[in-house]
């Protein structure tokens, strides 16, 4: 069963289309990044998934249940982007309130609250009113709130935007911990370096459409861009290379061939094959694309089109 699945999810506000066609599959236990330029429809998409906004068309499930299913919400955590909480509550009271709203019994709340306060580094602030909190502290307490119910799926909307480097580290550590616990994380963030460090897969959206989903974790499935130069870069060779990867291109000026392969384990096979073809190999250079490169490539391409 998937943590999130959407098919052709769409939201219109009057004549304005906020989300045109959203197709997502997020696996259980996966850390999933949701990327796109400002105004791409990310926030509306998250609000639809959480049942705050009703979709105009399309279907979606969270943890196997249709959107808006009330019991399912007990298994989900959410840290909103505009985290404004009841500022007249004390930190421990705030967590207790949200624990009650999750339907957690008193004993479980009393056990979980000190642990969570410690987890987000606010153990000594339990009795401080939220109005005395800095933006970073509010974000931390918001994060603790999202984890109260040991959720199976957590939505984090820009969780590091208000944080200093120490706070970002903390969020990264918490995401790592959630992954180990088997919790799926849906991460909406502008900080590509953060996303690159924490996410298993990311999807790019623009103008309310999902463009492409790519894997980020190190391992055989990570896409690599290969550049090679050989003795005879003819049509037959290019055709043959197509079996190893996609986007096979020949730069006629330099004679360099580039192609994107699925993972590094393809490289030795490709080298052997070139040898069998009696090709002289001058250059074979793999390059992992940074997330920023991919972002500009994928989202940029689309915006030019």
């Amino acid at each position, binding site marked *: 069963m998937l943590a999130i699945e959407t098919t052709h999810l769409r939201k219109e*506000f009057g004549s304005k289309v906020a989300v045109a066609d959203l197709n997502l599959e997020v696996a259980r236990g996966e850390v999933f990044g949701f990327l796109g330029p400002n105004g791409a429809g990310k926030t509306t998409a998250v*609000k639809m998934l*959480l*049942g*705050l*906004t*009703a979709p105009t068309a399309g279907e979606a499930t969270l943890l196997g249940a249709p959107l808006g299913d*009330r*019991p*399912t*919400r*007990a298994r*989900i955590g*959410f840290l*909103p982007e*505009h*985290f*404004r*909480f*009841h500022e*007249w*509550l004390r930190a421990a009271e705030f967590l207790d*309130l*949200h624990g*009650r*709203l*999750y*339907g957690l019994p008193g004993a479980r709340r009393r056990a979980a609250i000190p642990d969570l306060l410690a987890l987000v580094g606010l153990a000594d602030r339990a009795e401080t009113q939220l109005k005395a909190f800095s933006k970073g502290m509010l974000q931390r307490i*918001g994060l603790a*709130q999202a984890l109260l119910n040991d959720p199976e799926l957590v939505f984090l909307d820009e969780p590091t935007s208000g944080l200093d480097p120490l706070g970002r580290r903390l969020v990264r550590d918490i995401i790592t911990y959630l992954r180990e616990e088997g919790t799926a994380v849906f991460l909406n963030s502008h900080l590509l370096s953060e996303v690159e460090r924490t996410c298993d897969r990311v999807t790019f959206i623009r103008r309310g459409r999902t463009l492409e989903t790519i894997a980020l974790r190190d391992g055989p499935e990570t896409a690599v861009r290969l550049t090679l130069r050989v003795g005879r870069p003819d049509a037959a060779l290019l055709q043959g290379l197509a079996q190893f990867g996609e986007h096979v291109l020949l730069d006629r000026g330099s004679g360099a061939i580039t192609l994107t392969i699925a993972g590094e384990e393809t490289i030795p096979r490709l080298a052997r094959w070139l040898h069998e073809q009696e090709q002289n190999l001058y250059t074979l250079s793999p390059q992992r694309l940074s997330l920023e490169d991919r972002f500009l490539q994928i989202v940029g391409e689309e915006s030019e089109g």
Partner: protein
Amino acid sequence: MATFIFAQLTIREAQRRRILWVALLMGIGFLTVFGVGFHYVMLELEMFSDGGTMNTAAGGLLAIGLYATSLLVTVMTVLVSVTTISGEIDTHTIETLLTKPVRRWEVVLGKWLAFMLLLALYLLLLAGGLMLFVYLRSGITLQNVPAGLGLMLLQGLIVLSVTILGGTRLSTLANGVLAFMLFGIAFLGSWIEQIGALFQNETAVDIGIITSLLLPNEVLWRRAVTLFLPEMADSPVMSAGPFVVISQPSPAMVWYALFYTAVLLLLALFSFSRRDL
């Protein structure tokens, strides 16, 4: 269950934001001013008046105090409840609440119940204080006290339901304008009805009745005062005023007010459940 949590939260907010303490303090101030004023008027009356005149005058003063209470309760209900839903939507506070396994209408109902309780307690403090003081100083008691207080409470609940319903769709300021203007129109209409009744102008009376249907708030006050002081309603001693009722509201108006409150509350529950956030 969640309704209860939201009710509790609303009361705690009123407490933490010092609304309760300021209201209590100012309420005591209100009662003190009335008490001192009443005492000195009574001193004067005791010297120069007979028992009957004294009773009428004391009853009239009490009616003025209760009328002020009725206005205060209405205005304060609007003030404290006008931001409760739209404010939490504006600040996005509502998002972390509604993504919990709660029903949206539980939020609205919880808030409504909390404000009802605060309103009832405050009404009891002010109106009860006035009545107690008048009784202790002059021995005068009102009639039909529980029924009359019930009508005054209903006055507050009507505007509460208006602001709660408005808050599910309107901005805080627009909601405040709506509530106060509705109140203002009904207030004006009620006076036109009174004056119309004095000069036996049926059109003026009809205007009053129509505005009362729009917001049956002021009309409940007139009903309440005829319950409290039935003899004063026909007394020729006092000239026309808010505590003298020339055009008697029909008892059906009370049923209408109850129905009005219930419908607005149900609409609010429904409206909030359906909106995008």
